[in-house]
C-alpha cells in the first residue's frame, strides 16, 4: 500500500469519476450543447475512403432546420408520400408504446420498453434500407417492425406471451424475432448482435448476394467486447454492414459519460478502426434516412462498413422496471435541444404544405383506434398469467432440432407432475 513507499515528492494521483451535469432537482440548462446548424455538414461521395471524412464523426448531420425546411447536401429529397408514411410509422410506434406500457402497468404482462423520442432512429432506417436487408436490433428498435408493416397484433401477442405468440411465450416481452421481416431474434445480452450482424454480412458478401446487414445498440452497450470484435471483423473483411449506435445519453441510470462520451463522440470509435463514421441528429428523421441510405450505398458497393451515431435522448425511463426521476433531472426531456422527432417531421410536412394540424389530429385518433383494436385482438389470445397459453410440452421444443432422450424424459416428468398436481393443465 502506498503510505510507506518512495516517490512521496511526486504529486498524488487522483481518480476521476464522471458525473452527469444534472441530477434530480437540478435545473436543466443545455446551452452548452453545441449543435451545428442543419444543412452544414458536408456529404462525401460514397466512393470516398473512410479516412477522407473523419471530421464527420465530430460533426452532426442535420437536414431539418428550425423553420421545418429540409436543407443541405444530406437532404434525401423524399416524396411527400414517403414522408407521410414515415410520420405515420413514427406516430404508430409512439401509440403502440403508450398502450403497451399501460398494459404492463395494468398487470397484463411482465415487462415493457418504450423508445419515446427515438422513433426516427429505427423508422427512418427501415425506410432507407431494402426490406430484405437484415436487421440485428437491440430492444429499442420496434420502429423497424412497424415501419416494415409488421402486424401489431403479432407484436402484442409476443408481449402477452399468449397463444398467438409465435415465440411460444419463451421470450421476455419485446424480445421479438421476425424472420419474415428480416428482423433478427433480439437477445437479452447486450451487443451480442453486433458480431452476428457482421457474420451475416460477411456471409452475404461471400455468397455474392446483394443484401446487407444493419445492427443497433445503445451508447452504453458500446463498451461490451462484442462491439470491438464486430468493428474489428468489419474493418478487416470490409463487411457490408451498418453499425448504428443509438446515443440516447442514458444507460439505465448511467449517463453516457460512463461509456466514454466525455472524451469523444461515439462516431469517433469508427476512426479507431479506420471505418466510416457519421454523427447524425437522431431526432431528425430525414438526417437518419439520408445517413442510412448513404451507408447502405457504401455497403452495397463493397466500400465496407459505416458506423452511425444517432444523437438523441431517452425521454422515458429505461423500461417498466425503473423510475428515471431517481437519477436524473425531470427537466431534461423537455429542455433537450434536438426536440421531438415526430413533431419535427410533422412540422416539416406542414412547412412544405403537405400536411396540417387537423390531419395530424385525425391521424393520431385513427392510429390510437387501430392500436386499441389490435390490442383487443391480441388480448383475445390471452394475457400473461391468465391461463395456460402454450401447451405445456412446448417448453421442450427447440432446445435442439430433435429432442434427445433426457429432454423427452423431463417432458414426460413435467406432464406427470401436472397430473399429480391434481389440477392438470390449469396450473397457470
Amino acid at each position, binding site marked *: *500500500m502506498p503510505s510507506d513507499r518512495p516517490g512521496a515528492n511526486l504529486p498524488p494521483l*487522483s*481518480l476521476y*469519476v464522471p*458525473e452527469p451535469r444534472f*441530477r434530480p432537482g437540478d435545473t436543466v440548462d443545455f446551452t452548452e450543447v453545441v449543435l451545428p446548424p442543419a444543412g452544414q455538414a458536408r456529404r462525401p461521395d460514397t466512393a470516398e475512403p473512410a479516412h477522407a471524412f473523419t471530421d464527420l464523426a465530430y460533426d452532426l448531420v442535420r437536414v431539418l432546420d428550425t423553420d421545418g425546411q429540409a436543407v443541405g447536401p444530406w437532404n434525401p429529397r423524399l416524396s411527400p408520400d414517403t414522408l407521410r408514411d414515415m410520420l405515420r410509422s413514427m406516430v404508430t410506434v409512439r401509440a403502440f408504446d403508450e398502450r403497451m406500457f399501460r398494459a404492463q402497468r395494468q398487470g397484463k404482462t*411482465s*415487462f415493457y420498453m418504450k423508445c419515446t423520442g427515438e422513433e426516427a432512429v429505427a423508422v427512418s432506417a427501415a425506410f432507407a434500407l431494402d426490406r430484405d436487408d437484415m436487421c440485428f436490433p437491440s430492444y429499442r428498435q420496434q420502429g423497424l417492425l412497424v415501419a416494415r408493416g409488421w402486424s401489431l397484433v403479432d407484436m402484442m401477442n409476443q408481449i402477452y*406471451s399468449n397463444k398467438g*405468440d409465435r415465440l411460444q*411465450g*419463451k*421470450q*421476455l*416481452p419485446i*424480445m421479438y424475432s421476425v424472420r419474415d421481416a428480416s428482423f433478427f431474434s433480439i*437477445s*437479452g*445480452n*447486450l451487443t451480442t448482435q453486433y458480431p452476428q450482424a457482421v457474420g451475416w454480412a460477411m456471409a452475404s458478401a461471400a455468397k455474392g448476394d446483394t443484401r446487407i446487414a444493419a445492427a443497433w445498440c445503445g451508447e*452504453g*452497450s458500446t*463498451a*461490451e*467486447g*462484442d462491439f470491438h470484435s464486430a468493428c474489428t471483423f468489419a474493418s478487416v473483411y470490409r463487411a457490408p454492414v451498418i453499425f448504428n449506435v443509438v446515443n440516447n445519453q442514458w*444507460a*439505465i*441510470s*448511467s449517463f453516457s459519460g*460512463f*461509456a*466514454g462520451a466525455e472524451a469523444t463522440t461515439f462516431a469517433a470509435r469508427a476512426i479507431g478502426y479506420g471505418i466510416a463514421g457519421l454523427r447524425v441528429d437522431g431526432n431528425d428523421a430525414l438526417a437518419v434516412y439520408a445517413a442510412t441510405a448513404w451507408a447502405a450505398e457504401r455497403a452495397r458497393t463493397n466500400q465496407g462498413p459505416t458506423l452511425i451515431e444517432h444523437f438523441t435522448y431517452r425521454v422515458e425511463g429505461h423500461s417498466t*422496471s*425503473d423510475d428515471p426521476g*431517481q*437519477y436524473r433531472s425531470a427537466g431534461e426531456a423537455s429542455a433537450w435541444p434536438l426536440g421531438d422527432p415526430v413533431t419535427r417531421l410533422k412540422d416539416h410536412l406542414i412547412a412544405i404544405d403537405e400536411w396540417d394540424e387537423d390531419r395530424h389530429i385525425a391521424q393520431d385518433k385513427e392510429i390510437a383506434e387501430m392500436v386499441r383494436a389490435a390490442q383487443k385482438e391480441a388480448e383475445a389470445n390471452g394475457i*400473461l398469467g391468465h391461463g395456460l*397459453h*402454450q401447451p*405445456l410440452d*412446448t*417448453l*421442450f421444443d427447440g*432446445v435442439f432440432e430433435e429432442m434427445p432422450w*433426457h*429432454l423427452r424424459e*423431463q417432458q414426460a*416428468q*413435467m406432464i*406427470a*407432475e*401436472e397430473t*399429480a*398436481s391434481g389440477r392438470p393443465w390449469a*396450473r*397457470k
Partner: protein
Amino acid sequence: MNMIQAINSAMDVMMDRDPAVIVMGEDVGYFGGVFRATAGLQAKYGKTRVFDTPITECGIIGVAVGMGAYGLRPVPEIQFADYIYPALDQLVSEAARLRYRSAGEFIAPITVRSPFGGGIFGGQTHSQSPEGIFTHVSGIKTVIPSTPYDAKGLLIAAIEDNDPTLFFEPKRIYNGPFDGHWDRPTQNWSQHPAGAVPEGYYKIPLGKANVVREGEALTILVYGTMVHVASAVIADAGVDAEIIDLRTLVPLDIETIEASVKKTGRCMIIHEATRTGGFGAELSALVQERCFYHLEAPIERVTGFDTPYPHSLEWAYFPGPVRIGEALKKVMKD
C-alpha cells in the same frame, strides 16, 4: 432487514472497517443498483469508492482483478448472473488462477456479487443459475445465502476472504422467503426469524453448512431460494427430513453432508439450475462415493429442466412443490 438491506449493510460495514473495500458495477453508484443493493453507499463513501462502470462485464472483472493485485478489495456487481459470461475469461483464467500461477505473489481478493435465479418472470436472460459453471473451476469459491442473516454474515466473510468469491444472491427471496407456491401471497423477511439482522459486524464462515431442520427420514441438500421451497414441502408432507442449507458450494461442508446421509440413508438434492452437469450432479456423486453402503434408495435430484428459462411457462420450469413432492415419494419409497 430484507435480504437487500442485509447485503447493503454488509458492504457498509466492510467499507467502514476497511478503506481497501470498494464497490463498482453497472448502475451501482448514484442510483444504488437496479435492485438497490448499493443504495446510499456512494453518498456515504464517495465516488472513488463506489462508482458506476461502463457496460462491460469483462472490463469490470478485469479491472477488479487489477485493483485486487494493487491491494484493494473490490466488490464488483454483475447486474444479473445471466450477464456474467462476458466476464468468464477474467474470472476463470485470471481471478481463479492468479495466486496459483504466481505462486502467491499476486492474489485476487475480489467478491463478485450477482443476483441469480428465476421466479420473477425475467425470461431466459434474467433468471439463470450459472453456479454449476463456476463450481467446476478450481480457485473460485461460490457462496449462496438463503436468508438476510446469512447473506450479511457470508458476504462479510467473502469480502474478508483473500480468494476470489462468487456471491450469488437469490433474487426471488430478496424481499421475503418463498414457499414455491407462486400463486399464494408471500411473506416478508420481517416475519421471519432470519430477517433479524444485527447492524454491526459479524461473519458466517465460508465452507460451513447450516442444518435448518434436523431429521431422521432423509437428507435434503439445498441452497438459496430452494431452502424455503423445500422446507415448505417438508412441513406440508410431514416428513422428518434433515434439511441442509449448503451456504457455500465450494468449499463444501462435506462433513455435515456425510454425517447426515449416513444417519438418514436417503438423500434428495434440489436446485433451480438446469439438471445436466449442475452442482447437484457433484453432490450426488460425492454422496454416493462416501455413503454408498448407507444408502437405502437412489439419490434423487430435483432441478430445473435442461431448457432455457422460459418466460410464460416459468412455473412449469421451476422445481416447485409438486416436483419436489414427487421426488420425495420416490426417495422415501421402500
